[in-house]
């Protein structure tokens, strides 16, 4: 079975632009979570979705938004990019979230110039 997939692998944007990152969960998983990982730090929780509903939100500004589609795939959108948004963005899927084991994708490396 395929694991969690993310696209694109790498992305370079300039300040002020908008970006959309995509994630496809493992088949059968209904929960998707998004994380931001800055070099040398642990993943920081951004959002969790279950059955297309937002179940959790981390301490990120409103420039960050996400959604989950009927097929359980998900998109993370970031508007008005700042230099500080440069990071590895990880997507993880699980059956229901919370206490479940999360399966991580390889991430999207976003560079903001």
């Amino acid at each position, binding site marked *: 079975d395929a694991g969690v997939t993310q696209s694109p692998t790498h992305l370079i944007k300039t300040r002020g632009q908008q970006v959309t990152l995509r994630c496809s969960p493992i088949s059968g998983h209904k929960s998707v979570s998004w994380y931001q990982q800055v070099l040398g*730090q642990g993943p920081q929780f951004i959002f969790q979705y279950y059955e297309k509903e937002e179940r959790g939100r*981390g301490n990120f500004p409103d420039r960050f938004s996400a959604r989950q589609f009927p097929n359980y795939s998900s998109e993370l959108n970031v508007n008005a990019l700042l230099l500080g948004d440069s990071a590895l963005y990880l997507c*993880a899927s699980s059956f229901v979230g*919370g206490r479940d084991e999360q399966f991580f994708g390889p991430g999207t490396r976003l560079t903001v110039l």
Partner: protein
Amino acid sequence: AQSVTQLDSQVPVFEEAPVELRCNYSSSVSVYLFWYVQYPNQGLQLLLKYLSGSTLVESINGFEAEFNKSQTSFHLRKPSVHISDTAEYFCAMVETSYDKVIFGPGTSLSVIP
């Protein structure tokens, strides 16, 4: 405020020696606790987890962690490490009433031949 602390950012240890990676958490409610591992050039994967019941949990590759509620700790131990254990180790917690996963900053374990 909820947080996860990993005091040791880097832990070098000789092959076949024992190792302990420390993890402390802060929360006012019940939590689930996890250790995730990231091997070089690979994605994050679950190593072990504590949900309830026995406070000592084990992984298939010889690691164990003990939940200590009074000390709010979940330290990871292995009696004899191998070169292949070289990786970044992240402690994480989920409060039982929420779906927000909080990761620690990580500990880089380097096993020296």
